[in-house]
């Protein structure tokens, strides 16, 4: 077991596990788009960012690929984390507005506007399908092809792969292709607010731990 501090709580967790696994075990909710328990973590969607390290020397890392380390100080919902997470969600909405999963996550994080130019990508390159194909099916029919802005999911030479067994797992696991809820405003990528819960108290406080009710962060701040 490894002892570490998460959101001010001292916790012990299995060696070799990731921060995301530890957080979820203790009921801390961290959003993800490219993570699946049955696949190797990939660290690409950047939504599972957490802040690690002593204050002043901390940095943001993807919790799905970061192993629990003895004595590590982790904050899963600091203002710094949430600021980045929100902007990324806004960027996701601006890039791939057709996904219900993205729409819901954005809504949960109180992302109510999109300031970037609206695009309509069908894929967020989370790599769930390619990992599913390789790791679960040993199929190796599809993969991440190209580099940088040219990167895409594809098969070799853009031809139907002989290795594909038509299992359909790739489309089953895809977070981007479920149709979104269109709500009252069809055109807007932003959720129509049907799901909008009260936003966390971030405008006033540095840390919010909204998995706790009442919010411990708010109470602790008040005492200080």
């Amino acid at each position: 077991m490894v002892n570490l501090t998460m959101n001010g709580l001292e916790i012990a967790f299995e060696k070799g596990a990731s921060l995301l696994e530890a957080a979820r075990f203790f009921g801390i909710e961290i959003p993800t788009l490219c993570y699946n328990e049955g696949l190797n973590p990939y660290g690409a969607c950047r939504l599972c960012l957490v802040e690690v390290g002593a204050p002043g020397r901390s940095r943001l890392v993807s919790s799905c690929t970061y192993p629990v380390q003895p004595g590590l100080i982790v904050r899963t919902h600091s203002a710094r984390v949430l600021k980045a997470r929100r902007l990324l969600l806004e960027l996701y909405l601006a890039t791939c507005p057709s996904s219900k999963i993205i729409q819901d996550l954005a809504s949960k994080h109180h992302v109510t506007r999109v300031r970037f130019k609206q695009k309509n990508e069908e894929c967020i390159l989370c790599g769930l399908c390619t990992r599913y194909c390789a790791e679960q099916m040993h199929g190796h029919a599809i993969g991440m092809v190209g580099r940088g802005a040219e990167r895409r999911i594809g098969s070799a030479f853009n031809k139907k792969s002989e290795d594909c067994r038509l299992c359909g797992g790739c489309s089953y696991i895809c977070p981007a292709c479920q149709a979104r809820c269109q709500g009252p405003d069809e055109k807007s990528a932003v959720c129509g607010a049907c799901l909008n819960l009260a936003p966390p108290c971030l405008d006033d406080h540095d840390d919010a731990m909204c998995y706790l009710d009442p919010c411990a962060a708010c109470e602790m701040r008040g005492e200080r």
Partner: protein
Amino acid sequence: MQEGMIERSHPFRQNGISLISQLQQIQQEHGWLPEPELRRLSAATGEPLIEIYRVATFYKSFSLAPRGRHRVTACCGTACHVRGSAGVTREISKLLGVKPGGTSADGRYSLETVNCLGACALAPLVVVDGEYHGNITPAGTRKLLKKITGPEAGNGAAAER
């Protein structure tokens, strides 16, 4: 890494030669990476074709299409950029009728851009069939390319008008 996960701990190496080196050898032999060669490599090594294809598309030096008989490389490093390489590249592209990264339909010319050849004192730098030419200006491109375009095509853009 979770336990029980399947991860290929030893990426493919045949006789100690890495996949990248194998592709470099194929490219050296053919000038590009023909599909049948990559399929053969996959069959011979058991490496999934998609993995080979991924490596071939990730690295800039690999080409999955034949390149032109004449290769023009415009350096677009920072030193070349501040000395006006963008205008030079644009003119070459117009004169040859080839977009950067492309090959002309008749297979005569390829135009490539490169992010720095380390000869910044000669900026802006253009390499024509392996020969370095420094301090090229947009107006100087036509003369520079005459060697490969020949006199008739040298005024290509002007003749079209």
